[in-house]
C-alpha cells in the first residue's frame, strides 16, 4: 500500500508570506525522511515560485496564492498557483537570466533554480488567467 498525504495553503500576495509558505511546505515535507540538502532544495524552489506569483503574477494587483503539496510514497509534488497576469511566452520566461523586471532586481534565475533543485518542473499559464507551476522531487531512500 502506498503512503499518501496532502495539504493546501492559501494566502494573499504579501512578500511577508514568502517565509510562511517556505516553512509550511518544509513542515509538511518533514514527514519524508529528507536530508538537509533535499529540504533546502524544496524550500528554495517554493520560494522562487511563490515570489514569482507575488512579483510577476500579481504585480500591483491584489490576489491569492495557492500552494498544494502531495506526497505519494517517496515523491513530493508541489503546485504553486496565482490568478494573475499570466506569462505570454513560457519558453522564453524559463530561459536562464531572462527577466521582465530587471528594475526590481530580479535576476532571471528563478525558473533555473527550480529546475536545478527539483526533478521536474512544468508551467501552465494563460494571459489574464494566471500561472500554475508544478514541481516534483523524488526523495532518495535512506537506509
Amino acid at each position: 500500500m502506498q503512503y499518501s498525504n496532502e495539504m493546501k495553503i492559501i494566502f494573499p500576495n504579501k512578500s511577508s508570506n514568502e517565509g510562511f509558505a517556505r516553512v509550511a511546505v518544509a513542515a509538511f515535507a518533514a514527514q519524508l525522511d529528507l536530508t538537509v540538502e533535499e529540504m533546502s532544495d524544496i524550500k528554495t524552489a517554493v520560494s522562487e515560485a511563490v515570489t514569482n506569483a507575488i512579483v510577476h503574477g500579481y504585480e500591483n494587483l491584489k490576489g491569492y496564492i495557492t500552494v498544494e503539496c502531495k506526497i505519494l510514497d517517496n515523491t513530493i509534488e508541489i503546485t504553486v498557483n496565482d490568478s494573475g497576469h499570466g506569462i505570454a511566452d513560457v519558453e522564453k520566461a524559463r530561459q536562464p537570466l531572462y527577466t521582465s523586471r530587471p528594475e526590481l532586481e530580479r535576476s532571471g534565475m528563478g525558473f533555473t533554480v527550480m529546475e536545478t533543485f527539483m526533478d521536474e518542473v512544468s508551467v501552465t499559464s494563460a494571459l489574464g488567467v494566471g500561472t500554475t507551476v508544478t514541481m516534483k522531487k523524488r526523495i532518495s531512500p535512506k537506509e
Partner: protein
Amino acid sequence: MKLEKTGGILIVRLDGELDHHYATKIREAVDGAVMVGDVRKIIFDFTGVGFMDSSGIGTLMGRYKLMQTLGGSVGVFGISPRLDKLLSMSGIKKIISIYNSEKEAVGGVS
C-alpha cells in the same frame, strides 16, 4: 542586518533568510548608506544567512551595478557550499569577489 563603515569600506552583515522580502530591505539600507558618500567597496558578510534564493543574486547584481557607476566594487565572504552553488549558477562570481574570510575581504585581496 548590520551596517559598518570603516574608511571607504561598507560591511553589510546579513542574517536570516535572503528572499525577495528581505532583499527589498537590504537594497534600501545599503543604497542609503552608499548615497551618504565615500563608499569605495561594499562587502557582504553572509555568515548569518541560513537561506537564500535567486533574490540574493539580484541583490548582489544590483549593488555591483551601483558600485560600477561610482567606480567601486563589491565583495562577499562567509558563503556556504549551498550559497556558492546558487551564485555559481548565475555567473555572478565572475564580476564580484568571493573571499574566504573577513580579513581577506577587507584587505582587498581579490
